[in-house]
């Protein structure tokens, strides 16, 4: 294994709302090696998108990054000046947006929206070199060169999403965060876009974080899966470990809620509601919904700990090194 390209350490984000402080990200830590693909799953409001925004340093008031590090390729993004952070976006860490339908400026040609990104990072590059790079980028996501001269409204949803990916890889970033890149697309296009992301990732050798709800998609194309709950990572394991034998009770519930061929038609949800970030339950945040919760779970907050098989779990069941299933 190579050295990690991305290290997130104790990242904390708080939103200061009228109704109180909401800890949207609570001491989140994980590492990712270059070439690795990690899926990030969790219910709506669990802090997935906040994590993506925090890593891009795009948290806006009333939210604030309270502490922690985001080290990409040896540089801690959190300590960079604002100007340096602008340069780091797209060149070190790139973001592919959720709503690709509206993520392109309707009154600018695709080409102009690609070149302005390059120009922002490299003011000395010649126009022809810049155009060539954009064209290559478009071709590498299976788009025609003509797209360069087109307007967003002339493209289909899948094509727009590809353009966003093409913009994301313009400067060959070390880490790509894709925020539900397939959510608004039909199933066939979803598949094609995922294949494109996979290929791009291989070509660039970068690390990819894919945020999404679709466990099937995760199983097919990710290496690792990280599960978020109430602003915390509760389990990080390989796809195989996650899908065959999840440790954390929430992870287990997630996997069991998936439809499979054995128990056709019996869909199991997870009882209860995701907690409000304004009033996170004491102890383990999952304890009110957990079938295995003990009294201790209401008091003691579990920490994310590495297990003997290499995965990370944050659950009191596994804290005394007693690995019981």
């Amino acid at each position, binding site marked *: 294994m190579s050295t990690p390209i991305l290290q997130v350490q104790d990242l904390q984000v708080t*939103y200061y709302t009228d*109704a109180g402080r909401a800890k*949207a990200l609570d001491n989140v830590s994980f590492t990712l090696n270059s070439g690795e693909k990690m899926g990030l799953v969790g219910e709506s*409001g669990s*802090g997935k998108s*906040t994590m993506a925004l925090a890593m891009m340093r795009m948290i806006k008031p009333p939210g604030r990054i309270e502490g922690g590090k985001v080290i990409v390729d040896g540089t801690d993004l959190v300590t960079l000046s604002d100007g340096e952070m602008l340069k780091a976006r797209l060149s070190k860490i790139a973001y592919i947006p959720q709503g690709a339908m509206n993520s392109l400026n309707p009154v600018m040609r695709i080409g102009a929206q690609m070149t302005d990104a390059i120009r922002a990072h490299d003011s000395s590059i010649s126009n022809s070199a810049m155009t060539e790079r954009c064209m290559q980028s478009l071709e590498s996501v299976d788009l025609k060169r003509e797209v360069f001269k087109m307007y967003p409204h002339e493209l289909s949803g899948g094509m727009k999403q590809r353009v966003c990916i093409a913009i994301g890889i313009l400067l060959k970033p070390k880490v790509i965060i894709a925020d539900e890149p397939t959510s608004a697309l039909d199933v066939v296009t979803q598949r094609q876009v995922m294949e494109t992301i996979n290929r791009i990732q291989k070509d660039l050798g970068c690390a990819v974080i894919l945020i999404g709800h679709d466990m099937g998609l995760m199983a097919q194309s990710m290496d690792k899966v990280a599960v978020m709950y109430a602003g915390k990572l509760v389990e990080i394991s390989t796809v195989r470990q996650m899908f065959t034998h999840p440790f954390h009770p929430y992870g287990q519930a997630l996997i069991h809620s998936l439809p499979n061929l054995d128990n056709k038609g019996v869909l199991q949800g997870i009882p209860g509601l*995701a907690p*409000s*970030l*304004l009033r996170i339950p004491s102890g383990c945040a999952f304890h009110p919904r957990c079938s295995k919760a003990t009294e201790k779970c209401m008091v003691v907050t579990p920490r994310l700990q590495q297990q003997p098989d290499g995965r990370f779990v944050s659950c009191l069941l596994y804290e005394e090194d007693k690995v019981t299933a």
Partner: protein
Amino acid sequence: MTTLAVNSPAAVLQPKRSTLVLRYLRRNKSLGFGLAILLFLTLFSITGHLVADVNKLAYPLAVKPKQPPNPLCVFDSTMKIGKNCFVLGTDFYGRDLFAVMAKGLGQTARIGLLAGVLGTLVGTLLGFTSAYFGGAIDTVIRGITEVLLPIPVFLIQVLIAGAIDKKSVTVDTMALIVVMLAWMGPTRVIRSQVLSMRERMFVNVAKLSGMSNLEIIFKEIMPNLLPFLGSALVGQVFGAIFASFGLAVFGLGPLREPLIGNTVYFAQYQASFFNGWWWWPLWPSMALILIFGALTLIMVGLDEIANPRVRRSE
């Protein structure tokens, strides 16, 4: 990304309604400020009506008043008017400007409210019919509003007012002239709002549950239209006062009345600045600026209620 938990109703003490309104006005500053200005002007006018004989003092006087024009004023032994008699001064025609302002504010409010309410009523009715029933009615109403929209309405209002015999112009005819061509705005707004609402779920649900057209209109659509209606009404009042002011400045108002616009017109007509009577046009101008400013602020504030998206801008 935060989900707000629902408070249990028992835990929250429900404050009094008036406290709630005040608290809301403190947050919606433009609405509160605008209402405060209007309140001030209303109180001023009422006070004026109470303490002074406005129906006499606001009109040109043939003879010197025999009684003090207001309580501040005390006649001395020689029956001469003392210093405090005319707080805002008098004008070329010998009118007490304090009384003129008090009476004029009332008349201006009358024009604004009359034309505003009428215009909103007509506009709402047309907009509603147009959007809710659609078809030929919609085509006709929409066609008329669209043709009238680009025309500078004020021009036509000026023509109408100019065509009427001067002697027969009263405060109320003025309001009618103004409202005649001013219902298109509300018609358009209400029409588009009803159209979008008609497509929304709750109306469909109501239809499926067998409510009649009228029931749907009054029980389902009307309550949701209220902020827009309020905003349209204030807009109409604003437009009416604006237009009547424009007409008055052209000398087309009910000239004998101490309408605020008329006061400005007469001050200009008598070249008050050249003659050094600077206070004469100043009071009515300030009153009008306060009126227009207050109405604009209220419109902005109502917009905040109708479009929550504008709300959090800071």
